[in-house]
């Protein structure tokens, strides 16, 4: 592994990008699913029933985690760019990831 790749900033940038790509792929499907409401509550319920399978429940938790992670790591980028913060990158990355995981866990416990 290249030394610079072990830096917290690299890990943060990689996770930020991967979560962003995952969200971009998911978004059109999410919008199409929500648009089933146009065909009535029954059509939407049939779709919601499909999302109750374990695989899709897992994917749902992963997507909430990806959304939370993309948000918190994005806030880190905005803070670095727009606030006089230049140090403590490791702490900022850890805080971002911890906040994202906390949101994911709240969702997971809520779902369960």
């Amino acid at each position, binding site marked *: 592994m290249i030394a610079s790749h072990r830096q917290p900033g690299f890990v943060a940038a990689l996770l930020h990008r991967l979560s962003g790509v995952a969200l*971009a792929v998911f978004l059109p499907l999410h919008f199409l*699913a929500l*648009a089933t409401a146009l065909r009535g509550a029954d059509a*939407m*319920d049939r779709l919601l029933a499909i999302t109750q399978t374990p695989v899709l429940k897992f994917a749902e938790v992963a997507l909430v985690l990806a959304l939370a992670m993309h948000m918190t790591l994005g806030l880190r980028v905005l803070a670095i*760019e727009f606030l006089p913060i230049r140090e403590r990158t490791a702490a900022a990355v850890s805080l971002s990831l911890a906040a994202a995981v906390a949101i994911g866990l709240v969702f997971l416990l809520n779902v369960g």
Partner: protein
Amino acid sequence: MLFVAQRATAFVLAFAVAVHLATIIYAERGGLTAAEILARTQGNGWFLALYLVFVTAVAIHAPIGLRNVVREWSRWRADSLDLALAAFSILLLILGVTATLAMFIP
């Protein structure tokens, strides 16, 4: 220009995504049948406005982010990349607005 648009929408999205995450968690508690969801959303003007802003910001933010990733991780830098992502932006906007109106307009 793209950088400014990306950062400006990021500020909007920071707020919108935080609200959306809270809504997702609340919605799971409030019940996830279509009737329960639509009863909460339909006729809610404030949330309709918020989600229309959310969808518009996403339709700008996501393609610019993808453009950065594709340009860094691949050799695709031609005009066709910008065209493809402009099309993706329009697709997101159309699908997003349709989904929002479906959820919030009775």
